Every structure is written in structure tokens, then in C-alpha cells.
């Protein structure tokens, strides 16, 4: 990776700064013990604040809470922990199973991506940071907490803080943790066996007016299974998958400190395997994900006033997988290959296949080698802080420098194999016979490398803090400069930003609170003179419980707060879109001459956007925080309202087509609104040796597109404007066609020639035709509007039990594809569809259309028939532990030993009638249940 000179210059200037300071102060190393952090402090942008005095909307979840969920991927520990965050699990493939996260729903129809800061610095991926290295995760939700991030702020920010050592007790703490888990799929869909498949296929052909394919003799052969090579009946899941897979995790950490320095160091090994059976890791491979994390955080007290904080963390991730087909494709093959397609192996044990279906799933897994992705990430920072008490009490300065680097490459060992195509014949004696034609060739393993990816980041912070109390007045202020670059392998231009930010916090008698913050933020992506934006926010708080009139035993704490501010988002924009570019486009060119003399062409690319700018968001938040009954009960609620504008829209959609613009013409014209609420309550009490706790939260976010600049449509009901983002449109199904008379008496369904058993739609515009003009908005948004969680805990005499439920509601899912639409492309038929299909006999009770072997344009199109409103609740986590105590432990020099059993995703309840996983719809690698056993030893 080549660096531009200026990056090197910037790096060096920061390095020199650090070195200079170290040298300058080294002669005066008179160490002083640093004061320990109060647990009442929580992370805010570039600092910490006392929780009860915070005027912005922030949710902090501690690392110890996240660690209760035994998952290899960090975002999978977020489920149910963070009010305002919606978590959806869409994949269970080891190493690729991260959750999809939404922060307060959706804000922009352009991009909702948000940034994640690790110890204050942006990073590329956070999913494989180990939960053992995390002190806390903090979700900044409102304008007051986000304004200092300028154009990075509007979609929300997650702060991750890593653990740091402390000098409590002046002795090293060693912790060893080990966990072993067994994983099983939450759901494997069921498909019909060969006999039913053939029978139903014949029925589908009859329905289409085509001759039957399978004879009575065939059906009998499939039914009695006396000749499984001639009449195969294969369940591919059974052939490929093992019943369980393993997951393991081992962590060793050290922490401690003295008056010179505090430290935290850890190393961990995580290993997560896939479900494919009989792999050997040499000629082929199961899916596997192995990860090593390490971290060393050191705080050095150089002088009484000068502290250096060093953070160094990194990880090695190695992933392996069968390379013949993508994981999604392999799982599709297993689901869709008909049971009678071919036997898995020939009698001689060779892999079968046909010209149309050469990818026998067994061959894909065992005979095509493997691929791998190997990535390395490292992130490091140094911060120097100096108290300038000699100038004035409470004044300090700081400077930080951070680098991070991610690198990935792929190493594949692949080969091909010859497959044996079963050819069915009839022997001279008239009996069934078959032989195998050899196709393709066996090759040796071939090595290839590629899929390189690299990203490097560099960041500098420098600033002044001033924190002081004057009697009833408390001030806390920050003025800081930040600049960062990010270069990505293959990009012509690196990303760069600069930010001058500040924050002034004031508290009067710890009762009346106010905070003003701002950012003056610019990036390289906008035109000179239009690069910087100013983003201010104001928040106010009133601690009523400090007022005399509220003094009582019932209410321990009560605070009201409000915030408003302007935020920005530069996410999802084309780069340098203020310039007009010209270039080559696919297949653009012309053939002159009598041969194929191709003359390449230059075309006008997307139209320049001279006023190119970032999205803006006016965000308002009202909140209440309270504690009652001797702090046993706590209650928090937040209400937010956001007005997003200047979202990029493609103005070609509203332009007469004779403008002739071939590509897009983006303009900052879109607008949305988003509002919602988060409420959470916790209760914790103790009776003798029994401690019990319960907590619950619910969040709701609803959005609406208020300016869409979409192509005008004659029917208001087909507009996305005025509706939530991701609104689905389609026809309204009103049942199945009973018979031909019914078809004749109904509006003309124009998508294909309909037959009895096909879906019948409502003619919304009553023009006698069913076409796209009859589409209406037919569903809720695809992102849940409601998320909620409930946790329960009990501790008794060394035992502890925790249960975490989480769920979501108010969303729609759309049933489509091979799970629900049988026989298209010769796909298999699921048992669910088979049981519900329309036939003349079951017309009254059927709940799926007639079977058909053709891509039925009438049935298999967007309509409310395939839409389901989904509500989902799962027992996300349950853990039972026992803490051992006693002399025998002490003799082993063990402070504490804990054994535990836990289960992840043990139960899932939903209102979905289809027999599939409600989140993945059983496409791709399944979501897993994990049963774990673990031990923790503290020395």
C-alpha cells in the first residue's frame, strides 16, 4: 500500500509530537497514583460524564452483560441489550453470521450506515472484537450526544471501550475462561420424498395442461424403493450435514497496576465449525472460522500531571469453506435438487451428476477442494494527557495518535472431479437398467490466491479540557481537533476528514443542567468552499429529585432532559459527484467494418450535482430518568423526532425521458421523518440469600418518506412518498379461481393465462384488467417498528440463573423463491406447500395456489398473498451457573471458580404459518442453537 506524502508527513508529525513529549518529561518521572474511575461515569463522545448529570440520550451496556451471551460474533451479543437498537439474525454461517443492526429504525432511504468507534477511533469492522476485551458499548442516540461527530452523526454512533487495568489491591488478576458449545440448526426445512415429488409433479403438469412425466411404474418404483439407484430418493440435508457442530472459546487475561502503571492484557482463541460431515481439512474443508484476539492496554503515569495511555489490539481471522459453490448456493442446491434427480453416489462409490445439474452437493463439499479467507487487523493508539494545574486548576491538554490496518487475502486449493451421469435404459429383457457415463475429469489440487482487501486508517486528536467547580457551578468543557484518513486498496483517492469540535457542559447545584456542543466538520468529498458544515446541538436537564418539593423516600432520582440539534450524514453518496465525469460503460461501442472491428466509446456518466452536499437531520429528543424505592426500581424513557432532508434522489425519475440522461442525476432533495420512543425499566432486590432482578424494554420507531422525487404514477396508492421506507407494493389477492367460469367472469389477469387454482386479484381501478395499475401498498415495512426484550435473573447460594428474551414486531416479510414456489426450474416441493396446495377437491380449504411447472407469472408476483406480518419472540439466552467457594480453591490459588451451562436461541416463537426460520426464511446457512458448557477461573 502506497501512502501519499502528506499522510507520511502527518504521521511523522504526530509521532514526533509523542516522542518529544516522552523525552521531555522522562527526566522527571515522579509517578503518582491515578485516581480510579467512578462507576457512575459513562462514555460520551471523546470523554466521560457522570451518568446522573448527562443531558443527552445515551445507552450504555457493560461488557459483562454482553458476555452473558455466548456468541462468537460481537453483534450477536447485542440482542436484547440495547433499547433503540433492532437486531436481526439473517445468517448463521460461522465467520459470516453478524446480525443486521438498525439504530432507531431507518432514517434515510439512501443509507443508514453508522460509524463505530473503538476507544474513540474509527475502525473498519467491529464484529470480531472479542467481548472479553470490552469494558462497555455505548449507543449515542440523540443530537446532543452526536453533534460533535458532524457528518458522521445523523445515523447514530456506537462507542466501544476496551478494558483497562486498575491498581485496586495492587495485585495482578489472572482470569482463565474456557467454553465448549454444541450447535444445531434452529430449523431445517422439509421437502417431499421422491414418491410424493413425482406424484405432485404429475399433478403440476396436468394443471398446466401438459402430459404427465412419471408413469405408474415410476411411481411404484419410487414408492417401494427396491431399486434406489434407478429410483433414487435422496434427502440432501441428510447426506451432507452432520447433526451438530462445535464452537469453542478460550480466553486468558491479566490485569493490574501500581502507582506507575496500570495494564490489561488478554489473548483468546475462538473456533467455530460448520455443519458439513466427513470433511478432512486437507482435500476439502468444512466451514470453519478460527480467530485469535489479543490486546494490551497500558496506562503510564509519567509524572504527577502527565499520563500516557497506550492501546494495542488485534486479531487474526482464518476462514475456510468448500469453494465449488457459494454457501448460499450450496444450501439452495440441497433444498432445491429434486429427491429423484440422481443417487448420491454410484454403486461403485463415484459422485453422480448430470449436464444440467453437475453440482452434486456431496461433490461440492468433498471433491472440489476448499477456499479460505485470512484477515489480519491491528489497531493501536497512544494518548498523552497533561494536567495544566499550574496555569489554572482543572485545565488539561491531550493529544492522540492512532493507526489501524486491516488486510485480507484468499488462498484457495481447488480441483474438479469427474461426475458419473446415470443413464436409464431398458435392458433387452425389458427390465430397468442403467449405466453411468463419465463426464469431466479429475484434476489435482490447484492453488490460487486473490480476494485481496486492505484498508488503513490514521487519526489524530488534540485538544484542551477544562473541568472545574465554583461553588454551585460546575463547568466541563472540551475543544478538540480531529483529522483522519482512510485508504482502501484499489481506490484512487483516500478518504479524509477534519473536524473541530467542542462541548460546554454546565451544572447548577447538580439540579439545572445545560450542554452546548458543536462540530465544524469537512470531508474531501465535496467541492472546495462547500466542504465544511457546522453542526450544533443544545441540551437541557432538570434533576427534579434535587428540588426540595420532591424530597421523599419514594423517588430517589428523577431527571427530565431535552435536546435538539442539527446533524449530518455523508453516507451513501457517490464520490466527488460535483464533477461531471465521462468514461466507458459496459458494451458501449460500435462495430464498423465487415469483421468485428470494435470501436470503444466514451459516454457521459452520471450527471454532475453542482450543489452536491450531505444529508441533514434536525433531531429532537425528550427523556426522563428515574429511580424509586431505594434505587431498586429504575425507569427511563425517551421520545425522539427526526426531520431528515437533503437526501440524494435521482431526479431523472421525475424528468421527461427526452432529457436523454442515460445514467443518474442525483440531487439533494429527498426528505424523511422518523419518530419513536424507548422505554425501559429495571428492578433488582434481595431477600436473604436470594437476589432477583428483572428488566424490560421496548422501543418503537416509525418513519415516513415525505419527499421521494419518484416517477409520477397515476394512482396515489402506488407512491412511496407518504409511506415508510421499504414499503412493498403488490396486488391484493382475493382467493383462488374456482373454475373456468370463475375465470371468465373475472377481470382479465394479464400476467399469464390463468387456470383454476391460480390466484385471483382485486381490480382496484375497475378497468377490467389486472395489471400493475392494480397494485397497492400491501405490507408493513420490512424493518421491525417494535423491538423489545425481557431479562430475568436469580442468584441463590452460589447459583445464578439468567434468562434473556428478545423479540420484534410490526414488520412484514415476503415469502418468495424456492421454499414457497415449487417446481420452477425443476425445484423441489416443500412439504409445507404440498400440504396446502390448491386442488379441485381442496379448493375450499387450500392455502397455496395450484402446483405448476412453469414460472407462473400470475401467482409468483408481488401480492399480499405472500406477505406475512411477523411478530417474533425468542429465548435468546439462558444461563445457569454455580460459583464455587471454599478452602480447597484457595489452596489451588484460585480466587473464584464458576461453572455454567448456557443455551442460545433455545426457543423461537412467531406467528409465521410457514415452516421456515422466520428471519432467514430458511434460505442459506441456518441460524443455530448453541448449548455451551463453560468454566471461569480467577486467580
Amino acid at each position, binding site marked *: 500500500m502506497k501512502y501519499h506524502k502528506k499522510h507520511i508527513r502527518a504521521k511523522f508529525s504526530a509521532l514526533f509530537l509523542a516522542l518529544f513529549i516522552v523525552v521531555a518529561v522522562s527526566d522527571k518521572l515522579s509517578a503518582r497514583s491515578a485516581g480510579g474511575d467512578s462507576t457512575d461515569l459513562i462514555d460520551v463522545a471523546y470523554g466521560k460524564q457522570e451518568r446522573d448529570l448527562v443531558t443527552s440520550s445515551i445507552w450504555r451496556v457493560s461488557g459483562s452483560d454482553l458476555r452473558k451471551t455466548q456468541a462468537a460474533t460481537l453483534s450477536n451479543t447485542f440482542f436484547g441489550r440495547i433499547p433503540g437498537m433492532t437486531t436481526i439474525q439473517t445468517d448463521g454461517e460461522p465467520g459470516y453470521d453478524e446480525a443486521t443492526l438498525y439504530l432507531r429504525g431507518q432514517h434515510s432511504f439512501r443509507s443508514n450506515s453508522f460509524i463505530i468507534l473503538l476507544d474513540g477511533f474509527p475502525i473498519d469492522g467491529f464484529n470480531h472484537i472479542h467481548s472479553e476485551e470490552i469494558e462497555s458499548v455505548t449507543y449515542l442516540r440523540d443530537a446532543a450526544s452526536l453533534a460533535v461527530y458532524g457528518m458522521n452523526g445523523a445515523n447514530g454512533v456506537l462507542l466501544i471501550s476496551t478494558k483497562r487495568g486498575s491498581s485496586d489491591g495492587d495485585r495482578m488478576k489472572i482470569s482463565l475462561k474456557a467454553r465448549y458449545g454444541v450447535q444445531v440448526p434452529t430449523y431445517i426445512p422439509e421437502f417431499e420424498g421422491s414418491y410424493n415429488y413425482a406424484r405432485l409433479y404429475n399433478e403440476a403438469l396436468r394443471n398446466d395442461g401438459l402430459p404427465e412425466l412419471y408413469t405408474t411404474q415410476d411411481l411404484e418404483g419410487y414408492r417401494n424403493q427396491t431399486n434406489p439407484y434407478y429410483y433414487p430418493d435422496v434427502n440432501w440435508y441428510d447426506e451432507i450435514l452432520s447433526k451438530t457442530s462445535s464452537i469453542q472459546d478460550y480466553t486468558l487475561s491479566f490485569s493490574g497496576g501500581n502507582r506507575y502503571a496500570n495494564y490489561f492484557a488478554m489473548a483468546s482463541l475462538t473456533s467455530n465449525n460448520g455443519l458439513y460431515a466427513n470433511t478432512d481439512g486437507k482435500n476439502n474443508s468444512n466451514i470453519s472460522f478460527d480467530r485469535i484476539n489479543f490486546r494490551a492496554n497500558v496506562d503510564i503515569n509519567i509524572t504527577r500531571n502527565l499520563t500516557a495511555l497506550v492501546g494495542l489490539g488485534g486479531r487474526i481471522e482464518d476462514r475456510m469453506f468448500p469453494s465449488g459453490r457459494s454457501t448460499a448456493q450450496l444450501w439452495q442446491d440441497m433444498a432445491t435438487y429434486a429427491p429423484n434427480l440422481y443417487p448420491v453416489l454410484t454403486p461403485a462409490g463415484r459422485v453422480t451428476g448430470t449436464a444440467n445439474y453437475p453440482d452434486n452437493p456431496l461433490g461440492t463439499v468433498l471433491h472440489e477442494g476448499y477456499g479460505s479467507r485470512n484477515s489480519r487487523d491491528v489497531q493501536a493508539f497512544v494518548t498523552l494527557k497533561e494536567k495544566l494545574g499550574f496555569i489554572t486548576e482543572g485545565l488539561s491538554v491531550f493529544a492522540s495518535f492512532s493507526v489501524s490496518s486491516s488486510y485480507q487475502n484468499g488462498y484457495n486449493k481447488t480441483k474438479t472431479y469427474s461426475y458419473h451421469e446415470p443413464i436409464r435404459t431398458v435392458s433387452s429383457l425389458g427390465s430397468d437398467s442403467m449405466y453411468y457415463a463419465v463426464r469431466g475429469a479429475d484434476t489435482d489440487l490447484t492453488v490460487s490466491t486473490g480476494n485481496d482487501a486492505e484498508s488503513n486508517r490514521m487519526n489524530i486528536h488534540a485538544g484542551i479540557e477544562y473541568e472545574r467547580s465554583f461553588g454551585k457551578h460546575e463547568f466541563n468543557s472540551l475543544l478538540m481537533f480531529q483529522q483522519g484518513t482512510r485508504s482502501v486498496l484499489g481506490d*484512487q483517492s483516500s478518504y479524509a476528514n477534519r473536524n473541530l469540535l467542542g462541548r460546554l457542559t454546565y451544572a447548577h447545584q447538580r439540579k439545572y443542567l445545560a450542554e452546548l456542543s458543536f462540530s465544524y466538520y469537512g470531508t474531501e468529498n465535496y467541492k472546495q468552499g462547500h466542504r465544511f458544515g457546522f453542526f450544533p446541538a443544545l441540551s437541557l436537564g432538570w434533576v427534579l429529585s434535587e428540588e426540595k418539593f420532591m424530597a421523599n423516600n419514594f423517588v430517589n432520582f428523577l431527571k427530565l432532559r431535552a435536546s435538539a440539534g442539527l446533524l449530518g450524514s455523508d453516507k451513501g453518496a457517490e464520490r466527488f459527484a460535483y464533477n461531471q465525469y465521462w468514461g466507458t460503460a459496459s458494451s*458501449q461501442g460500435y462495430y464498423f467494418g465487415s469483421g468485428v472491428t470494435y470501436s470503444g*466509446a*466514451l459516454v457521459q456518466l452520471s450527471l454532475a450535482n453542482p450543489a452536491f452536499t450531505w444529508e441533514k437531520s434536525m433531531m429532537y429528543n425528550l427523556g426522563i430518568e428515574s429511580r424509586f424505592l431505594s434505587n431498586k426500581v429504575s425507569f427511563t424513557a425517551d421520545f425522539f423526532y427526526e426531520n431528515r432532508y437533503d437526501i440524494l434522489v435521482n431526479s431523472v425519475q421525475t*424528468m421527461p*425521458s427526452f432529457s436523454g440522461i442515460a445514467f443518474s442525476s442525483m440531487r439533494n432533495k429527498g426528505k424523511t421523518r422518523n419518530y419513536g420512543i424507548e422505554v425501559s425499566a429495571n428492578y433488582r432486590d434481595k431477600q436473604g440469600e436470594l437476589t432477583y432482578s428483572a428488566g424490560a424494554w421496548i422501543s418503537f420507531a416509525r418513519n415516513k418518506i415525505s419527499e421521494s422525487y419518484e416517477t409520477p404514477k397515476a394512482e396515489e396508492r402506488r407512491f412511496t412518498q407518504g409511506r415508510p421506507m421499504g414499503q412493498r407494493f403488490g396486488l391484493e389477492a382475493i382467493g383462488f379461481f374456482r373454475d373456468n367460469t370463475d375465470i371468465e367472469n373475472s377481470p382479465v389477469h394479464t400476467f399469464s393465462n390463468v387456470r383454476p387454482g391460480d390466484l385471483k386479484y382485486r381490480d382496484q381501478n375497475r378497468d377490467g384488467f389486472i395489471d400493475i395499475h392494480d397494485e397497492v401498498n400491501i405490507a408493513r415495512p420490512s424493518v421491525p417498528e417494535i423491538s423489545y426484550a425481557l431479562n430475568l435473573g436469580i442468584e441463590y447460594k452460589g447459583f445464578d440463573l439468567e434468562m434473556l428474551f428478545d423479540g420484534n414486531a410490526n414488520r412484514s416479510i415476503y415469502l418468495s423463491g424456492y421454499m414457497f414456489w415449487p417446481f420452477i426450474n425443476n425445484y423441489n416441493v416443500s412439504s409445507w406447500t404440498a400440504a396446502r396446495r390448491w386442488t379441485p377437491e381442496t379448493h375450499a380449504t387450500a392455502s397455496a395456489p395450484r402446483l405448476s411447472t412453469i414460472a407462473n407469472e400470475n401467482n409468483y408476483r408481488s401480492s399480499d398473498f405472500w406477505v406475512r406480518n411477523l411478530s417474533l419472540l425468542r429465548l435468546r439466552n439462558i444461563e445457569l451457573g454455580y460459583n464455587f467457594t471454599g478452602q480447597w480453591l484457595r489452596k489451588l490459588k484460585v480466587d473464584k471458580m464458576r461453572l455454567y451451562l448456557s443455551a442460545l436461541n433455545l426457543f423461537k416463537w412467531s406467528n409465521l404459518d410457514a415452516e421456515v426460520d422466520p428471519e432467514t426464511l430458511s434460505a442459506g446457512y441456518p441460524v443455530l442453537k448453541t448449548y455451551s458448557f463453560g468454566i471461569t477461573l480467577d486467580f
Partner: protein
Amino acid sequence: MKGITYYTVICLTFSCLTSCDDFLEKPVSSEVTLDSIFASRIRTEQFLWNVYSTSSIYEFNHFWSGSDNRFYHYGASGSLVDVATDALEVEGTYPAIPNYMHTGTWNASNINPGSWAIEFMSNVCYQGIRNCNIFIENVHRSPFTDDEKKSMKAEAIFLRALMHFDLMQRLGGIPIVDHVFYVSSVSDIDNIRVPRSTYSETVKFIVDQCDTAARYLPNVYNDSRYLGRIVKGAALSLKARVLLYAASPLFNPEDGQPYVPSANSTQRELTSYGSYDRDRWRLAAAASKDVLDWAENESGWCTLYRGMSNPVDRYEEIFINHTCPEVILSSGLANVAGGYFILFMVPGNVSGVQGQSNPSNHAVTFNFTRLYQKSDGTEQTWDEAEGVPYPYSQYRSKLAELEPRFHASVFYSGTEWSRGSGKVYHFYETNTEMLKNVRGVGFMRKFVKGVRNGSTAPRWITFRLAEFYLNYAEALNEVDGDRNEIEWAINEVRTRVNMPGISYVSKDQMREAIRRERSVELAFEQHRFFDLRRWKIAGREGLMKGSIYTLQLYDTKPEATYKLEVIASRVWDDKMYLYPFRQPEVDKGYIVQNPGW
């Protein structure tokens, strides 16, 4: 003391970092701008090829690879447009015409819903026009000589006119776009809501542009690499075709009545002249004569092709040989389009090439076969009763007697696919070649003479000289021109394929003869689809409406038989004489929709 040092360092760092003024500057990178295009000869030419690529006429719409279809706006999905006429039927997965045009279910919404089209993408035509306009407005800056610039500009002017014609022949009067629309903000959109021009204004615009282009275009390019570049004859040809269309009954109705009753006078003027003027035929005749004169006296190369001794080979050669001197303008099908063209045009699995799994099986109907005379110029006897079996030998002998152009254009049962190969196919017994499912008398073989999948695609012919003999004859007949001249024009075309000449008996007899000759000579070349419309006869039974017949073969014993059968029934509505404007355009509120849609 130390603290002050530190403080100073931080201040210094601040000033250092903030003084790096170029920190947020866009780095230098390899990007092309309008200025850099027209500052370079090569890039200026590359932009002109873009103009060609987006403004040329291809019969064949290939919607086959997501990124490739953007600039191929012409023709139907998966087939030739003449599939919508009585000439052809298809059998295959991809052709869209049978599902929409044959059933009469095409409409303003589904004609071109955005990413694909049943037939024709008007929005993409305007993308070509925009490119023409950008070139026309900027070529003066390029480092070419003044003459070169004029000539290149004339190419873009011609292509812009061609795109307007392309739109006009389907839609009537259209919004004329003769300059680049600059849209720098959303409020500019209001300034470009140009309404439709009347039919008369649109014709005038195209004709004027042709006149301008013809003034500067060369007669020939002396570099064989530039085969397919626009010559003066192309501009004359477009003008001649436009004036012929404009004079025809659909647009120049003798009774002054529109094709669909419309009380709206604006709508009438948008879709036709709204009145009859015989002089329009005179202008059409003169313009066609200009093309013939240009070929004869000025071009130095353009002539009816008369090579090859066998008339079947001779006619076939026009479509196979890229350098045939009869072709005034042709377009090279891009590699992908070309590959698909062959893939779709070759019937069944007759080429025996793996991967040809989805041919469109263009079949020539019996309705159209009847238009071919016997080689001696007399009529074939077609006395078969519907549904009655006749011997296969009679099918073969009757078809064998038809004229040379039939044999060059139709691959029927009992003949070779690749002529001269000796391999004869009897369709009813083909298993591997899958020719059994033919939906007509035989398969179309024009354009793809015995080719195999993957071989070089033909160039699609936009203008060839034979058309202008027939245009001339047709127009001259309508203005009661010189009989000898009419006979000469039509018989030039006939005698070229060794067919006996036709004599003038009456204006009506001659009109029918010319129309029939045109059908046969220009078969499947994207003429009939528009000719039947402009003659205002598309709605007649057996043309674009009603029953389509075939001679169906049966593998009976001892001898195979054939029956006259109805293979398809077509739906027609008079509103279909012109296309609808796309619904999204109408919804934008600046377009008056054509009547009936």
C-alpha cells in the same frame, strides 16, 4: 516549565496540521471530462462512436445481459418485430411479442416498464439524441480540420434525425429535441417539459435535418475499416423513407379521417396531417428518385447486387456479405447482440452446437408463403381444404416451385439447412434437431444462411437500394406518374432475381403488385410491421388480425402428410396503428397520449 513546553508543542502541531491546505483536496486521478474529450482526436472519435452506438438502428433488441441492454432500443425482445405481422410466428421462451402483441394485451405500462421492452424503448432513443446533441454542440472545439468537423457533425445530425424518425414511425408527432438539455437543479426540470410537435412539424424537422446532413456527408469512406459509417446516400434514404411514410394513408388520409375517431383536433394533428394532399406523394417520389440518382451518378459504388449466377445465392448474398454494394447503411451487431442474434435466429438445434438451448424458431406462416409466386411469375395453386391430409410429396413439390427469394428466405421440410451441405431435414422425424414444433410452413433462414452459433453475426441493414426502387414505384403510382417509369422501377427489383416483369394495367392493380413485391423483396426486414400500418390495412383479417395458417406435417404411415391448419389467432385494435407513449411519461403530465390508449 514542562507543561508550557507541551502546550507550545500542541499549538505548533495545530498550526502545522491546519496549514496543510491540501489535506481535503481531491487527489489527482485519471478522469475524463468534456474538455479532455474534445481536446483529443481519439477521444472525439470515441465520443462519436458513442453517438453511433446509441443512435443506430438494430432490428434486434437483446435484453440478455443486465448491463448490455442500455443502448439497444430497437426491435422486439427475443425476435424480429415482423413476428407481430402475418409473416412470422415464433416458438420459444424469450420472444415477448406473442404474449403481448398477439394477445392485444400490450399497453402504455407494459410496452417498456423500464429495464426491458416488448418492443422499442423510446426513452433510450432520447439518450441517443442527447449524445448527438452533445457532439453537435462540441465538435467545433476538436482538433480536426473544418471539413472533417463538418462531416462528423453531419453524421451526428443524421443520427439525430434517424432517432426522431424511429420515434415518429411508432408514435406520430413527438417532442423534438434539437439541443442538449442542461439540468443542474431540480427546478430546471420545468424548463425541459417540451410538448409533442405535430406530425407535420416532426416530418419537416427530420427532412430538413436530412438535407443539412446530405450537404456535408461524403459519398464514400476510402477506408474499409469504416464500413457502416454514414454516407450521403443514407441521409437521402432517410428523407425518402420519411416522405413515403408521410404520404401514406395512415398519415395522409384521403378522407381526412384519423385511424381512430377522435374529436380532439390536437390529437388528430399529433397523429397525422389531418388532411389529404396528393403533393406529398410527389415529394416522396422525388426523394426516392434522388436516392436512385445518387447511387447511379454520384456514389461511385452503390448498385443493385447482380453477382452470382444462381438467383437464390444472389439474393442471399445481400444479407450475408457485409460488403454488398446494395447496402447504403448497415449496423454492426455488437458481439453479445450478434451472438444472441444467431442464437435466436437459428431454428431448433439444427446447428448442432451445445448451449443453443433457447432458439426463437422464427417460422414463416402460410399466410405469407402465399405472397410468393412461382418462378415463372404465375400463382401457385393453394386449394387445400382445412384439416384434410395431403401427401408430403405435394408439400415439397409445391414449395419447390416457388420463386428464388422463397428458397433464400425459408428453410422448409425436405431441404437442407446449410444449402449445399447435402443434409436434408424432414421436420416430422427430427429428434435431436427439434424442428418438429415449427409453427409455419418452414423456418426463416434469411440473415443466417446455414450459420452455426457463435459465428460472425450479419450486419443489420437499415437502408438498401432495392427499397428505393419500390418506394419510387409506389409513390409514382399514387400520383399517376409515367407508367413506363413505374414498370421500370418495380421490374428492376424483379428481374434481379430472374422473375418476369409486371405490366401496368391500372393504378389499383399496380398498387397491389407493388405492395406484394415489397412484402416479398423486403421480407422480415422490419418493413412489413410498419408498411401494414401506414397502408392502414393492419386490421384486415389474416394480416395483423385473425387466423394465422400453417401447413402442419404429420408423421403418418406409409407416407407423411400435411394439413392446412390454423396455428394462431391474433388480436388487433385500431388504436394499435400507433404505439402508446409510456405511462410514466404520460404521468409526468407533459405528453398528450395517442388516441385509444
